[in-house]
């Protein structure tokens, strides 16, 4: 063990048993940084499965116990919410695909274990968006107060309805009709995703994306996201999906072609490059090469490497170096750049900047 407190989280994600040899100072940085990165639950669940869990010193172990309790609660919360969605959508005839965390959970994938869940994301055909929105409204979900700009932003430019929050439970559903904004440079065809969607065993109402599409969506989400604060968590999703689907030979042989077909070769290339580099994910070298080739040659690659190498670390001061804040800012601008044409981007950032002074965050308890 090197004993470098900057790298504890990534070392433990690669091999949880590495943490078992840590002294208290390394445990301290591991717990704090894993919490900030949103992977404490994932690590805790993995460590809990080792025989040596009880031999972890009490102080860090308490945080692991806490994180497991929280992860378990989130799992049952998502399951409960899916039952509510099932009721709400019972009467409309429309394919509904669960995306990201809720799909991993319902499909019983390892990527759901110990994961932090935010909102539930679903994908529906654009032609049935109004129907789905109406059904959800009838059952208590509503888009909160949005000003005219926000309404227009969502309805005309993005790939989803404004987040719909349930009035009594406070839970949120994001209804998507595409996986990238309508204004984005890349336009993966949602019809292709929907028609390849698969039945989930034992699940009559909801479908999931095909395994290759699930990886492509996860990659697209991560490498087009403005905020990489939870980048490492998303990278662990990819790592877990690739490990699980990778046991099926047919998966690797179709992944790159499907990426090209959906215009997502670049995010796929990044996904394979950084999961293998950062998390040691086992990917056949021929596949990483083919993905790099499909994404096209880029003279910017060393720059992207240096930006992502920083932004995909835990979002915690103990993990940063002096270039990390700048790397995150540049990737923030890059994500917007990919999402919108330049004039729209300038307008959007200006609107957000002018608004920023109204303050953010909660009132202290």
């Amino acid at each position, binding site marked *: 063990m090197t004993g470098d407190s900057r790298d504890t989280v990534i070392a433990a994600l690669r091999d949880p048993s590495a943490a078992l040899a840590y002294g208290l100072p390394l445990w301290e940085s591991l717990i704090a940084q894993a919490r900030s990165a949103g992977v404490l639950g994932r690590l805790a669940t993995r460590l809990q499965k080792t025989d040596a869990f009880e031999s972890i010193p009490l102080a860090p172990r308490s945080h692991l116990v806490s994180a497991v309790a929280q992860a378990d609660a989130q799992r049952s919360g998502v399951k409960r919410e899916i039952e509510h969605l099932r009721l709400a959508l019972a009467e409309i005839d429309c394919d509904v695909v669960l995306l990201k965390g809720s799909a991993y959970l319902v499909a019983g994938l390892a990527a759901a274990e110990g994961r932090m869940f935010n909102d539930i994301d679903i994908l529906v055909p654009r032609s049935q968006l109004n129907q789905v929105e109406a059904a959800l409204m009838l059952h208590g979900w509503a888009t909160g107060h949005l000003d005219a700009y926000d309404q227009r932003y969502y309805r005309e430019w993005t790939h989803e309805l404004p987040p719909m929050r349930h009035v009594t439970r406070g839970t949120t559903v994001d209804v998507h009709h595409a996986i990238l904004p309508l204004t984005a440079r890349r336009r993966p065809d949602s019809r292709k995703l929907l028609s390849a969607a698969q039945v989930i065993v034992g699940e009559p109402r909801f479908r999931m994306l095909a395994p290759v599409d699930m990886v492509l969506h996860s990659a697209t989400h991560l490498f087009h996201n403005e905020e990489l604060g939870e980048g490492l968590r998303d990278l662990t999703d990819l790592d877990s999906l690739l490990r699980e689907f990778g046991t099926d030979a047919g998966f690797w042989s179709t992944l790159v072609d499907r990426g090209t077909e959906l215009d997502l070769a670049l995010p796929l290339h990044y996904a394979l490059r950084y999961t293998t580099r950062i998390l040691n994910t086992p990917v056949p070298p021929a596949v990483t090469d083919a993905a790099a080739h499909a994404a096209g040659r880029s003279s910017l690659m060393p720059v992207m490497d240096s930006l992502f190498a920083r932004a995909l670390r835990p979002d915690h001061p103990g993990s940063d170096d002096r270039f990390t804040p700048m790397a995150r800012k540049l990737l923030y601008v890059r994500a917007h750049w990919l999402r919108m044409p330049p004039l729209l981007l300038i307008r959007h950032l200006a609107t957000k900047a002018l608004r920023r002074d109204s303050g953010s*965050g909660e009132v202290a308890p």
Partner: protein
Amino acid sequence: MIVADLAPGELARALACPGLRLRTGRIVTAIRSPIPAVAEGIGIHYAEHPLEPVDGFADFHVHVMPPQGLRRLFRRQVLFHFEGAAPFRPLPFEQAFPMLEWGLNWCISANCHQYLILHAAVLERRGRALVLPAPPGSGKSTLCAALALSGWRLLSDELALVDPASLEVHAVARPVSLKNASIDVIRGFSNDAKLGPLVHNTNKGTVAHMKPPAGSVREAQLPAMPAWVVFPRYAAGSDARLAPLAKAQAFMQLIDNAFNYDVHGRRAFETLARVVECSACFEFSYSRLEEALPVFTELADCA
């Protein structure tokens, strides 16, 4: 080593960098702050609290500092940082120490789900815990401060940390937060009450903290088993009245006062059921502390 052992100026220096590693019960927080009022508040209220070495384990890293950016030029404010992120809106600069206290409460209630956490004051006598769950405005903190000044050991004025396996309640032994009229009530109640400076115009009105008694701090590592659950209610002009409360009702009210019932789900249900089973449950209304205290002395003695 305790906070009071630090030479003058050393406390502020440690707070500036690398941070003061302060132990409160089982929890160690690495606190940084360049603000004199924070150093002063810690010097007053945490004088007997142990300091932990840098090669130990800190549960949380917090930083109380003025916000960066242009706004600081025309408005002095303070921000609470948790692990480098600021979860709350800034407050006026004068509220730096209360903000640290509220922030430390939040660190526990948002992150310590190894416990079932109740919004309750907890005090102890002979190993038995008195749990006083109540919403703000019920006179819980006033009663808690008075009991802590009258021979009860203070575990917390705000957070009951219940271990779901053993039912033991763990102590944090931190300052008691007093608001508005209760500040003078406690000043008048005992000369032993050591209060910090008044901070005006907070969300909760005027606030002052009371230093936890030295004995409570020394014994902060000792948990206690719940024995009494009492729901206090301040009612102006009323006589002190302790009335038995049906266990089912006490149970429902405990749920209402749990911070993380949703995290524990069934485990929370079962834990609270065991808490009311092994505790005598009451409602208590009062308006005068001198009448209230004998009621609790009697409760402790007759058990």
